[in-house]
């Protein structure tokens, strides 16, 4: 049932491969490569299964000998024996070829022939059989069940449990009628106090045996008491037989009688007496200053309590680990000790809390620590290294890995490319409200102008008051800093705006076509009416195009569906070269939600096969955080897209690029 099973070293050599049901050998490489790239290299190794197209892949890492075991099977199958199979294969393979790994090293891997097929087939057969043994159990026959052993009498229902009749056997219905009268006696006698229990039992329609037991006990207890008052309930039992129509008290009277509203007071203000208005209770605080808005008060005591609660459970574990930890440390210093989950757990807990204290989103910190644990489990530590240092080292490597860009981050190179193709390079800025889109747009346009590219700013924020004026001020300032005279008569930055209230996607499209290279004058004319006089015919064609078009959009919350649709439409229709998500470094767990929802909205509303998602992140307000730089990790982890720019202030020069090592150093600093 398996598609394939591969064993390969972390260095990339395939040691052994099993081709299962179908497919050539090459069919295994592509899914495994996808697994490596998306799970192992992006530190998502928390859960050990991965889906790629039609296959589900499960994997296991051997960190001692640096091996990876991967099994692939069809997604629609649910094979229960796969986990156990991987563990068994892992143990067997490791024991069988232990010598080659330990002594010969890489050459052993290269030269060794790993003839594992027979062992593997045996393990596979064992695993399949063991899963078959746990097949669905056969249903019990009626003779085997407890029901057949009970007497008929205890199966008969009393008055209190009338709805139960439908659940019972048809066999007992006949006998029930005869016994109803006799049983109704005890039932009625204590019907009062049995009602609440009956109501409870009535709801438990599925627990037949419990009910029977209860009923048996009940009958035993009240058998004697019931016999005395046998006569009175009889007529009532007879009455029960027929079904009587329900009678409403006021059913015959007309609507008028039922109208309890005081018609005299409806709609007339005078009829409503002015209630006793107490300004104190309405306003609350008499002594407040009129018109002032007070700050939000928060209780810091709650936080202190939470910390105490969290510390308490960690204390007993620390005490327990005290003596054992000392021996473990000594053992770790001397010999070659392999790391187990229990050794790493306290350290990982501390690292997780440290990361969360540094403003990494909570779920991402958890996933990161899980992935690091998976990578280190079973690894043999060298001499003079403690568990803490190994885990810290691994976590540091993982963080640097996450922050390394997965694709090229070179905006200037791409702008040059677009310049060569004579079309503008379009960048769109999106994000929630107040993160700094317009400010950083101005900074980026300053940087581009310094490098000799002309910029057209498209004001697609048609909602926020003052957005267009803000961009106009920036344009004026930038033009003052880089006047056209110093750039050969070319205006380096221009604003394209259409005021407020218009459709943003339309403005973006117009701006892009405005920024496109056109030839003005001469025979070829695109757009606009240029009078064909002798002067324009003889003058050379003037190229008026912009190298970069920066599109500023309105800030929007990720939960606001209509606005997200509008943004997705803008991006789908205009197909920008770069979609930048602007996020502030102060954001905490919200970063995860924002990015996920933005990406989802862009993917949902795009008509193309491969939708345009966020291509890069701009991290702003970096100067406001000292070393709580966790937001960078959260954002890159969620999207696996690089951080293209970092904003560190409000002047034009406050634009930086990310340095992964510096950020990780600040993050790991105690």
């Amino acid at each position: 049932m398996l598609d394939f099973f591969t064993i390969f070293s972390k260095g990339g050599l395939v040691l052994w491969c099993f081709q299962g049901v179908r497919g050539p050998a090459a069919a295994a490489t592509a899914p495994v490569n996808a697994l490596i790239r998306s799970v192992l290299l992006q530190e998502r190794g928390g859960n050990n299964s991965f889906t790629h197209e039609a296959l589900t892949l499960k994997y296991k890492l051997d960190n001692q000998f640096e091996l990876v075991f991967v099994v692939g099977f069809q997604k629609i199958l649910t094979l229960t024996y796969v986990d156990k199979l991987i563990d068994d294969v892992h143990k067997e393979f490791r024991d069988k070829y232990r010598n080659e790994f330990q002594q010969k090293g890489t050459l052993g891997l290269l030269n060794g022939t790993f003839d594992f097929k027979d062992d593997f087939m045996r393990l596979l057969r064992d695993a399949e059989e063991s899963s078959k043994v746990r097949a669905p159990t056969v249903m019990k026959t009626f003779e085997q069940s407890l029901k057949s052993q009970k007497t008929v009498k205890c199966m008969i229902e009393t008055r209190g449990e009338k709805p139960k009749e439908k659940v019972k056997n048809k066999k007992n219905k006949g006998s029930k009628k005869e016994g109803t009268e006799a049983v109704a006696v005890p039932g009625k006698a204590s019907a009062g106090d049995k009602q609440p229990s009956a109501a409870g039992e009535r709801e438990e329609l599925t627990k037949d045996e419990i009910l029977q037991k209860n009923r048996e006990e009940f009958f035993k207890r009240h058998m004697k008491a019931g016999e005395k008052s046998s006569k009175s309930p009889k007529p009532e039992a007879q009455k029960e037989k027929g079904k009587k129509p329900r009678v409403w008290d006021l059913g015959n009277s007309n609507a008028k009688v039922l109208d309890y509203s005081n018609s005299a007071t409806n709609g007339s203000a005078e009829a409503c007496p002015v209630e006793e208005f107490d300004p104190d209770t309405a306003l609350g605080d008499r002594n407040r200053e009129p018109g002032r808005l007070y700050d939000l008060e928060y209780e810091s005591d709650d936080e202190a309590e939470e910390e105490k609660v969290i510390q308490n459970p960690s204390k007993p574990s620390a005490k327990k680990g005290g003596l054992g930890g000392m021996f473990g440390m000594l053992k770790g210093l001397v010999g070659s000790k392999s790391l187990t989950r229990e050794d790493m757990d306290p350290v990982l807990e501390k690292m997780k809390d440290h990361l969360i204290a540094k403003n990494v989103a909570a779920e991402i910190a958890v996933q990161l620590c899980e992935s690091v644990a998976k990578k280190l489990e079973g690894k043999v530590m060298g001499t003079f290294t403690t568990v803490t240092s190994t885990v810290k080292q691994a976590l540091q490597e993982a963080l640097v890995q996450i922050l390394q860009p997965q694709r090229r981050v070179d905006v200037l190179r791409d702008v040059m490319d677009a310049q060569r193709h004579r079309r503008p390079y379009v960048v769109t800025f999106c994000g929630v409200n107040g993160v700094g889109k317009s400010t950083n747009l101005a900074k980026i346009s300053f940087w581009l102008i310094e490098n000799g590219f002309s910029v057209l700013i498209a004001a697609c924020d048609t909602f926020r008051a003052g957005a267009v004026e803000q961009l106009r001020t920036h344009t004026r300032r930038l033009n003052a800093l880089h006047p056209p005279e110093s750039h050969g008569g070319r205006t380096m930055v221009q604003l394209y705006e259409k005021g407020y209230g218009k459709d943003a996607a339309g403005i973006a499209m117009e701006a892009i076509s405005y920024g496109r290279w056109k030839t003005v004058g001469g025979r070829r004319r695109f757009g606009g009416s240029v009078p064909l006089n002798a002067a324009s015919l003889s003058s050379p064609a003037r190229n008026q195009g912009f190298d970069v078009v920066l599109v500023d959009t309105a800030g929007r919350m990720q939960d606001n569906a209509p606005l997200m649709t509008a943004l997705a439409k803008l991006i789908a229709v205009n197909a920008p070269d770069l979609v930048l998500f602007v996020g502030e470094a102060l954001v905490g767990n919200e970063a995860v939600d924002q990015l996920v929802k933005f990406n989802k909205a862009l993917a949902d509303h795009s008509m193309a096969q491969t939708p345009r998602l966020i291509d890069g992140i701009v991290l702003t307000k970096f100067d406001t955080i000292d070393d709580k730089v966790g937001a960078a990790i959260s954002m890159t982890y969620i999207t696996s897209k690089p951080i293209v720019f970092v904003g560190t202030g409000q002047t034009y020069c406050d634009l930086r690029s990310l340095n992964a090592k510096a950020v990780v150093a600040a993050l790991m600093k105690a």
Partner: protein
Amino acid sequence: AMAGMLEPHLEALRRELRAPDPAVLSVLLALLAVAITLLIWRLVQGRRSSRKAVLLLGLCDAGKTLLFARLLTGKYRDTQTSITDSSAVYRVSNDKSANVTLIDLPGHESLRLQFLERFKAAARAIVFVVDSVAFQREVKDVAEFLYQVLVDSTVLKNAPALLIACNKQDVTMAKSAKLIQQQLEKELNTLRVTRSAAPTSLDGSATGGPAQLGKKGKDFDFSQLPMKVEFVECSARGSKGEEGDADFEGLEKWLAKIA
């Protein structure tokens, strides 16, 4: 009379040598042991610090791991994306005494710089493997990685010999080494400008590095670099496929020269 006076001193000395004071002797022995250990350690350090490593660098799927396997064993092996480095000692075919340590580094974007950091100090030579078939598509990524390797301060200081191996020549669509050289020179020329103009890094150091590749004012050329650069064509898979040998005489000759 003199001999009479020396006699008791000589007797004392003889007595000392015969029954030496354990404290003094042990101190002397300890000092001797420490001195010997220091000498040995310095010798070993000296031997280790001489750079004997040849690094195999390149983008993902360039063929580094297969090349590594072929060089060491001559056999074809299936490979997957590498996650860690692999290293082994490679003996040059005819010369038994010359050997180098071949180190195969992962090419994935998230790992390559980390591993380069770790091994660049020990590098005597660098083999940069390029996928000749996908080169046209990947030229910018290849150039960027090559640029990052070339402007690294340690690499510039040590100036290890650089060989750019244009792999996958067994496929008909593969580009020739000459074409690859021209394209890389053009691309690196542009990268010089764009990378030095990139915004400065967070902690103040420029991303492009203070080093300037080649000579200012002139177009970039591989001859302007402080290290020796050669281009060679090879095919790790070999023209006969998995059963035959790999075609990399140029690479082997170069390795023999380096060792």
